[in-house]
């Protein structure tokens, strides 16, 4: 194909949806350092990026900013207004407020812990009922199909026990690939944290045993990697959970 014939493929190539034979032809031109195609792709990237801004406006929630900054371990303090009051005044104010805030925080944490214990107790009770139900000799199995749901991820962190990952609706990794878990510390690089696959029902459980610095952990993520695993992520994050 000539560059002129490939001209209408530049934008689709740049957003990753072009198919063969045009894709193979265009890649051949690019591999041969075709100046016209390289310039065409450059301009296409510009067109594409402008097109991505022509969308309806939707405001994110205020908590998103906090989550984003927490993910990289950098939460803004928001104390810029203090300078007008004077650092000393602010420090006194902080000192007075600190004890009361800490006190309230501890009470709140206690309430959360109680609620979690209650909820865990209910879950345990339900699980015991389910096991008892399944163990009944007269129980019959019916298999159904529902609406396909997106993958879900739950991650539990424990400073003594490590990381427990539980995923649902996760399709089995394709041949030659496997899921890899990554523990990403605040402001640090992802650490390889074990390989796993999902079962026929799309469920997966994976444990990274050992002590864990929970406070410095920002995100636990999952990628699809070659079946031998990788030391750094080579594929996009499929699932992630942050504190």
């Amino acid at each position, binding site marked *: 194909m000539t560059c002129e014939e490939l001209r*209408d493929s530049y*934008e*689709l190539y*740049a*957003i*990753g*949806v*072009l*198919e063969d034979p045009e894709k193979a032809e265009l890649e051949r031109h690019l591999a041969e350092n075709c100046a016209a195609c390289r310039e065409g792709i*450059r*301009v296409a*990237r*510009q*067109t*594409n*990026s*402008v*097109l*991505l*801004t*022509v*969308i*309806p*406006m*939707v*405001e*994110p*929630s205020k*908590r*998103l*900013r906090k*989550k*984003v*900054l927490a*993910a*990289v371990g*950098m939460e*803004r303090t928001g104390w810029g207004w203090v300078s007008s009051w004077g650092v000393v005044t602010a420090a006194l104010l902080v000192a007075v407020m600190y004890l009361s805030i800490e006190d309230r925080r501890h009470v709140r944490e206690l309430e959360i812990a109680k609620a979690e214990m209650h909820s865990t107790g209910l879950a345990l009770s339900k699980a015991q009922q389910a096991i008892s139900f399944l163990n009944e000799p007269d129980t019959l199995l019916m298999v159904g199909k529902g609406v*396909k*749901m*997106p*993958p879900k991820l739950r991650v539990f962190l424990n400073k003594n026990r490590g990381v427990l990952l539980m995923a649902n609706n996760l*399709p089995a*990794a*394709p041949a030659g*690939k496997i899921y890899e878990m990554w523990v*990403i510390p605040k*402001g640090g*690089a*992802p650490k390889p944290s074990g390989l796993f696959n999902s079962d026929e029902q799309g469920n997966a459980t994976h444990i990274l045993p050992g002590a864990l610095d929970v406070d410095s952990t*920002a*995100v636990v*993520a999952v990628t*699809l990697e070659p079946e031998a695993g990788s030391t750094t992520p080579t*594929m*996009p*994050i*499929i699932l*992630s959970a*942050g504190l």
Partner: protein
Amino acid sequence: MIIFFPILFAVADSEADRSLAERLKRREPQAMADLYDRYGRIVYALIFRVVRDTGVAEDLAQETFLRVWNRVQGFDHERGALGPWVLTVARNRAIDYLRSVDGRMAASAVELDTNEHPSLFGDLERDVLNSDRSRVLRAAFKKLSDKQQMVIELAYFEGLSQTEMADRMKQPLGTVKTWMRSALRTLRDELGEALTA
């Protein structure tokens, strides 16, 4: 027909973007907050446009900024266009999610990963994203027929190939290609005039 509204995108100050990218590479504590303040709304709006779920959109926006943070060392802050790179990363996270839901994940993940490498955004015009161009493209988009608009939407906001579009729209592949070709020519020509103006 889906109506588009342009986001008034105040990124004409390319020098500020260059400085921001440099500060991100130096891991300055305030740089990530500034990046979010500059691109948080558009990133979220773009992802929401694709996934249509506020919770998922927030998770993917977080993932977008984390990915930019982790890969910014490969970005050429002297020559690169930060906005287009951030938007591409955001769009890819959203498309990747859609494809994983549709079971199209494995085949396309590499494709998306390669088209968002920071080095690919090293020679774009820095102020390519500004509200004027967004307005030009919106006007051009409105000139397209319903079918032309649909194929553009399916490619950019659902990540479908032309074969997948033909299947979805129950139309011959050649017809879909014709709609796509004519739509892109219109958008390219209109925007090209604005870019060179």
